[in-house]
């Protein structure tokens, strides 16, 4: 089996996880201008909720997600209403600090409810190894890559063609102008949180299915942040692609360059890219007329 192929394949798997989590970050940033530092915790919380549903009803993957996603969207909506909506009009920095506080609260609640022990969470996905072009994968790994592909396509179509998606882009472009043409900005914010929570749940379940469900799952939010920066803070599709880029680069560095370089390799790439394109690979260039 080719070593390079193996590294590329495993890079795509970890990159898909980064990409999915990064999409959630970008979606909220695009429509609200807020970096949601609780995104990783949302990934963790929804994964644990899904784990409880799975343990209780023994659902297979797709029925499990059919239940998990709506619940996650409700959680996203509730969090937005309780913590973000009251902050409307406040400085962005204050709202970001609220998300930092929310992150700590969600971490505490998760451990309080589910305890500190890590779990195997198969998420109803078979565990037998399958070969794709001679490269071995666990089915959950294929699901992870597949989910990123589907969500990237769906995200592109949603933002390009749907009324809500176009409204979201309008709010992202100019909130005041969007208000003037009758777009409900608060509704857009709520939808962004709901969709972001939905993506978080898919990312969380598939991450846990691949790498165990543990209380430190929230940390993947921070690990995915470079993908958001690289893709462009306001580019949902760019974040997904950047996740894959970082995942593959990390694995190639680990495999060929040397030990301990996996963690810094993504950041090296980010530094280089941002020096050339400060708004990321796919982000919007800020133009100010003076």
């Amino acid at each position, binding site marked *: *089996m080719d*070593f390079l192929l*193996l*590294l590329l394949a*495993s*890079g795509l*798997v*970890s990159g898909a*996880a980064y990409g999915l989590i990064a999409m959630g970050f970008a979606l909220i940033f695009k429509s609200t201008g807020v970096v949601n530092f609780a995104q990783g915790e949302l990934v963790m919380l929804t994964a644990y909720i899904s784990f409880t549903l799975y343990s209780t009803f023994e659902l297979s993957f797709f029925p499990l997600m059919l239940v998990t996603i709506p619940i996650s969207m409700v959680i996203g909506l509730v969090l937005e209403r309780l913590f973000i909506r009251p902050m409307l009009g406040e400085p962005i920095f204050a709202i970001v600090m609220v998300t930092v506080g929310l992150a700590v609260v969600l971490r505490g609640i998760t*451990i309080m409810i589910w305890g*500190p*022990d*890590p*779990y*195997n969470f198969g998420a109803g996905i078979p*565990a037998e*190894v399958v070969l794709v072009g001679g490269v*071995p*994968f*666990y089915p959950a790994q294929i699901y992870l890559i597949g989910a990123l592909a589907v969500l990237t396509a769906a995200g592109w179509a949603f933002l390009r063609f749907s009324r809500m998606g176009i409204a979201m882009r309008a709010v992202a472009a100019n909130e005041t102008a969007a208000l003037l043409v009758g777009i409900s900005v608060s509704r857009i914010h709520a939808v962004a949180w709901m969709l972001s929570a939905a993506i978080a749940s898919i990312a969380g379940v598939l*991450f846990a299915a*691949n*790498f*165990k469900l*543990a*209380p*430190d799952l929230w*940390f*993947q939010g921070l690990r995915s942040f470079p993908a958001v920066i690289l893709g462009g803070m306001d580019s949902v599709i760019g974040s997904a692609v950047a996740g894959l880029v970082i995942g593959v680069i*990390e*694995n190639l560095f*680990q*495999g060929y360059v040397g*030990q*301990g370089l*996996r*963690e810094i390799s993504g950041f090296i790439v980010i530094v280089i890219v941002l020096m050339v394109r400060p708004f990321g690979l796919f982000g919007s260039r800020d133009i100010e007329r003076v």
Partner: protein
Amino acid sequence: MKNGLLALSAFLLASTAAYAADPGVSDTEIKIGDVNIMTGPASFIGRAVSVGSKIAAAEINEAGGVNGRKITIVTEDDGYVPARSFQALTKLIEVDEIFALNGTSGTANVLAMMPLIEENNLPTVVTTAPNELVYNPVRPSVFTVGASYSDAFYAQLKYIHENSEPANAVYGLIRQDDDFGGAVEAGYDRAVKEFGVKDGLRIRFKKGTANFAAEVAQMKQAGVNVLANGGIIAGAANILGEARKLSMDLQVASVWSEDMPPSVNLSAPAGYDYLVADYVALSGPAIDAFLEKAKKYASDEEIGAINRYTYVTYVGLKALAEAMGQCGQDLTRACTVEKLRGLKDFDTQGISAPLSFDNPEQLSGTAVAVYQLNAAEKTFKALTDFADY
């Protein structure tokens, strides 16, 4: 007047047993402190530790206590944060007025508490952090139970080398890039040099890494078939899971945390009957007897929390109680320290090798036994007796 003074002197002399003793000791009670990880991701360790203390104290108290004094355990949570360990011990010393310390959290935590321990000459038995930094340099009142990770890995690799050596053996190591990982590598290093086997690959990783696909692919590429797996809990399980995906035929040596039920549940699906080396027993008559005892003194929830940390803490408190008992009615910290220092071949009823602190490092329980997991049944069988390496 003279008779009055004599009577007063006699009264004071008679009452000094209680008043002259160190803090934490009354005529009826001895308070033992326990600074532990009761909250956070590592709290399964702290819960297990506190159950060990509870069972030991209950057993001692039922047998009449230490020369008639009952042991009371006072637990403080440090959340595995060294600064909080210091605060917790300050509270235990100044508010609760403990006599001695048994639960001491992790290595960094016990080191953070060291100034307080030394300042108060607090008899301290460290059972969960047998790191060289704890016993070197030696602190007069600190006694450590446990083996080194280095010895534990050497013992396992020795067993593999002598008993189940695969053809064309290629050894490989994966370990954290910290002190703990360094200790693991020391045992690996000693083994590959001493056995003259092929040292295929050494990989370091950052704490908290979840995805080991690239690392395991490197192992496969290097032809590793004897793996020193320095991952712990989910990390160790993910390493084995990746190895299974690549159909690697492996003999695996693991960290002793991998004998705990949460770790076994995570790792067993990969199907590797990995080894662990531990300084406490994992199976056999000693553990059966302990679990039977636990049913008497602990709740179902507490019994569910039992793991290796329960056994080591139980052993630690029993040793401490033995030393306190040898002091008789005039129980002081100085006497307890002296008696601990003289402890020799203290019988732990097979839970660990007998304890002896009469050595320059005041370190005991360095002997480890090698166990093998039956991944299908999630049970361990002993492959060797306790031995020093």
